[in-house]
C-alpha cells in the first residue's frame, strides 16, 4: 500500500463547510518547508494554483522567481470543449533544466490538469524532479498522480466541485458547489 501524502486533515466531507483556505495554506507551507531545497522553483497552475503558489512563495521565503502555467494548450479535452476563452500566458522566468520543481494547484481531482502541466513543463526543458503540492486532494483520481503535499485530503462525490475563489482584498475562500 502506498504511503499517504503529508497531510494535516483527512476525512469524508459530510457538509458544505470547508476549512479556511488561508489557514490551510499556512499549514501547507509548514509541511513543505522541511523538504524544500533553496534552488527549488515554485510553479503555480492558473488560476487558483497561482494564488496558492504566490502565498507559498512568500511564506517559504523562496529566493527564486515564481513561475506560472496556463495549461489550456495542453488539455486532453480540447477537441471536446474547445479552447478556454481566457487563456493566460505561461510565465517561467528561469531555466528548468535539471532543476527541482514544486508544482502547485488548488484542488487535485482527476489529475488531468497536473498531467497537462507536466507535459508543458517538459516542453520548456527537462527538470530534475517535479513534486506536487495541493491545497485540497478531493479524491476521484483518474490517473496515477498523487500529491506529495496536501493540506486537506477529503472525499467529495464526483458530481460536486470544490472551488477556490479570491476576493479583491486577496482573501481566499474554499466553497463546495
Amino acid at each position, binding site marked *: 500500500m502506498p504511503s499517504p501524502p503529508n497531510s494535516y486533515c483527512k476525512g469524508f466531507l459530510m457538509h458544505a463547510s470547508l476549512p479556511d483556505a488561508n489557514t490551510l495554506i499556512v499549514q501547507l507551507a509548514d509541511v513543505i518547508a522541511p523538504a524544500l531545497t533553496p534552488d527549488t522553483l515554485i510553479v503555480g497552475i492558473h488560476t487558483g494554483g497561482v494564488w496558492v503558489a504566490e502565498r507559498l512563495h512568500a511564506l517559504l521565503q523562496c529566493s527564486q522567481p515564481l513561475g506560472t502555467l*496556463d495549461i*489550456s*494548450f*495542453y488539455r486532453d479535452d*480540447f*477537441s*471536446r*470543449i*474547445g*479552447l478556454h*476563452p*481566457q*487563456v*493566460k*500566458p*505561461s*510565465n517561467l522566468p528561469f531555466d528548468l533544466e535539471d532543476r527541482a520543481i514544486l508544482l502547485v494547484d488548488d484542488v487535485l481531482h482527476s489529475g488531468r490538469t497536473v498531467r497537462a502541466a507536466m*507535459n*508543458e513543463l*517538459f*516542453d*520548456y*526543458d527537462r527538470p530534475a524532479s517535479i513534486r506536487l503540492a495541493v491545497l485540497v486532494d478531493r479524491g476521484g483520481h483518474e490517473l496515477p498522480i498523487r500529491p506529495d503535499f496536501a493540506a486537506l485530503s477529503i472525499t467529495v462525490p464526483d458530481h460536486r466541485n470544490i472551488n477556490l475563489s479570491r476576493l479583491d482584498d486577496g482573501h481566499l475562500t474554499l466553497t463546495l458547489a
Partner: protein
Amino acid sequence: MNPQLSQDGRLRHLLTLDGLPRAIITQILDTAESFMDVGEREVKKVPLLRGKSIFNLVFEPSTRTRTTFEIAAKRLAADVVNLNIATSSQTKGEAILDTVDNLSAMHADMFVVRHAQSGAAHFIAQHVAPHISVVNAGDGRHAHPTQGLLDMFTIRRFKGEFHNLTVAIVGDVLHSRVARSQIHALTTLGVPEVRVIGPKTLLPTGVEQMGVRVFHDMEAGLAGCDVVIMLRLQNERMKGARLPSSQEYFKFFGLTPEKLALARPDAIVMHPGPMNRGVEIASEVADGPQSVILPQVTYGIAVRMAVMAMLAGTGNA
C-alpha cells in the same frame, strides 16, 4: 446569422472582419498573446491540433502569408499540406469545389484559402461539411482577416489601447483587401479616428461610409497620427491611367522621414509587405526606429495560431 459563428457564438470560420464581434476579435488577440512565447521554448510546439490535417490552398501566389500559416499550424502540432493550385481565368467554381471535395475525402479538418477571386473562401465555407473550418488568407479585393488581426495585435502591443488613437492608412486603398480588413477591425475596436490617405484614383468611392476620414494630402493626413499604415502599391496599377509614374507617386504619397515627422513623435510605421522601397516607403523609414514591420511578421504566427486553435476548438473539428 453570421456564417462565421456557430450557434453558440463561437468562431466557426474566419472569412472577414466585417461584422465579427468585438469580443471575438479581442479573444483572438488575447489568445495570440499566450502563443507568443511558444516560439522561444525548447520545444516550439503545443499539442492542441495533434492529429488534425490542415490544407493550405494557395490559388494565388503568396510567400509570407502561406509560410506563417504553415509555421503556425506546425507549432500547434497539426499536419500541414501545402497545395499551390495554378489558376487561370478559366477556373470555374465547380473546379474549386471538386478540389475541396477531394481533399475532404482525405479527411481534411481545416482549409486555409488564398484566392484572387473575392468571395472564394465564403464559397468554400458554404460547401464544406460541418466539421471542417475555413480560414480566408486573402480573397481578391475583399478581405484578408488574419492580416487585419495581426495589425491590430501589433498596434495593441506598441500602443496598449485603441480608444485614444489616430490611425492613418496610406496608399492604394481601392485595390487593398488588407485596408478593408484593417478599417473593419479598427472601427470595431473603438479607434476614434481612422484616416485614409491617397490620390482620388486609388480611394474607393464612398469610403467615408466605412467610418473613415478621407485625405488627399499626406501632410494634412499624417498630422497627429499615432499609427501610420502604408499599403503596397501594386505595380500593375501603373499600367492603367490611375497613376502617372512611381516617382510621381513617391513624391506625393511615399513615406519619407520628413513626412513621418508630421505624425506624433512616438508614431509607429506598419506595412503588410512586400514593400516597394522608394515607391510607397523610403528605406530610411522602413528600416528606421519607428518601423515595426518585422515584428508584424513575427506576430502573424501567434495570431494565426490563435485563429486556428479557436476554430479547431469549436467542438466539431
